[in-house]
């Protein structure tokens, strides 16, 4: 009988002690701030802006139209050829591919895009037939250090330089009248 009573007291004393312990533990956690810190590295790479400067123009030289519609092509290497009608004239303005000089961050890749006007228009002749343009049906290009034809990407050399050469194909109509025809070729480069 007495033993039972004592045992009950012992249990309640023990649970009171444990409750105190938990309370104190909780107060200890709440009352103190435990901190930690760490350091991270941060990095950034600033690179030289990519630049493009035009050099020689794309020149198809002098030629006569043929009896049928044909074409004159200048390769990116500056070599001229013809198909069908047109007759090439060896004298006159020099035949050249267009060139663009690039500058920027060494060994960095870039995308290349070359576009042109749809037509070359007669800038020197007026009157009948002067509005008949010559269609620039294709442009082709090479990038320094890359054998691929008309590549979509290029890589700047280890000195940060590069170049693009652009040729094209011109459709020449049998009724094409004499005159100087001009248009624009645009090369665009963008870092990858």
């Amino acid at each position, binding site marked *: 009988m007495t033993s039972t009573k004592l045992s009950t007291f012992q249990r309640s004393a023990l649970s009171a*002690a444990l409750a*105190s312990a938990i309370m104190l533990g909780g107060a200890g956690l709440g009352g103190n701030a435990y*901190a930690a*810190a*760490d350091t991270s590295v941060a990095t950034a790479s600033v690179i030289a802006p990519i630049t493009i400067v035009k050099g020689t123009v794309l020149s198809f030289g002098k030629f006569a139209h043929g009896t049928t519609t044909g074409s004159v092509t200048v390769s990116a290497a500056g070599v001229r050829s013809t198909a069908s009608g047109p007759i090439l004239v060896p004298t006159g303005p020099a035949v050249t591919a267009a060139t663009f000089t690039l500058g920027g961050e060494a060994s960095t890749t870039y995308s290349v895009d070359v576009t042109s006007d749809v037509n070359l228009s007669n800038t020197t002749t007026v009157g009948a037939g002067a509005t008949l343009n010559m269609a620039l049906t294709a442009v082709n290009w090479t990038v320094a250090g890359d054998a691929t034809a008309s590549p979509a990407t290029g890589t700047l050399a280890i000195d940060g330089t590069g170049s693009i050469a652009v040729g094209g194909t011109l459709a020449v109509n049998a009724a094409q009248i004499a005159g100087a025809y001009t248009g624009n070729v645009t090369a665009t480069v963008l870092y*990858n």
Partner: protein
Amino acid sequence: MRVQEVFGSLQLKTRPHCFWKQLALACVAAVAINAFAAASITVSNPQALAFGKFAAGSGGTVTIGPSGARSHGGSVVLLPSAGGSAAQFGVSGEPSTSYAITLPANGTVHLASGANSMAVNSFSSSPNAVGQLSLGGSQTLSIGATLNVAGNQPPGNYSGSFNVSIDYN
């Protein structure tokens, strides 16, 4: 019966002594728990904050969000081939405990390359301001910031460091 009462009275005197003894032991145990909690908090930094590659142009900003997403302001040109990443910190400690995150103040962090530098400001984090450790006692803290790029900022590889502090609430 009388004897029993005396015996019981004796026990009642003894028990309070035992009670205080147990309470004292319990107090020691509570302190030990606190000491263990302080020791268990750790922060590691498995991933650096990287702004990637870009051309400065006439200047602007490069921002890395806590998700690692990169964006630019001004005329800075980002190179898609060399993106950035948010810094990551692994926080470990008491399960389900919340903690406060302290990021660097503006004007205190710079990246340098030789004599040239760029300021890193507007630090942001995910979780923002207050984190909560998982049931497993861990959480990944991601941190981004904004880099200020001057016009014609000299090319180079820039680096620096910053501190992140966490405090249990």
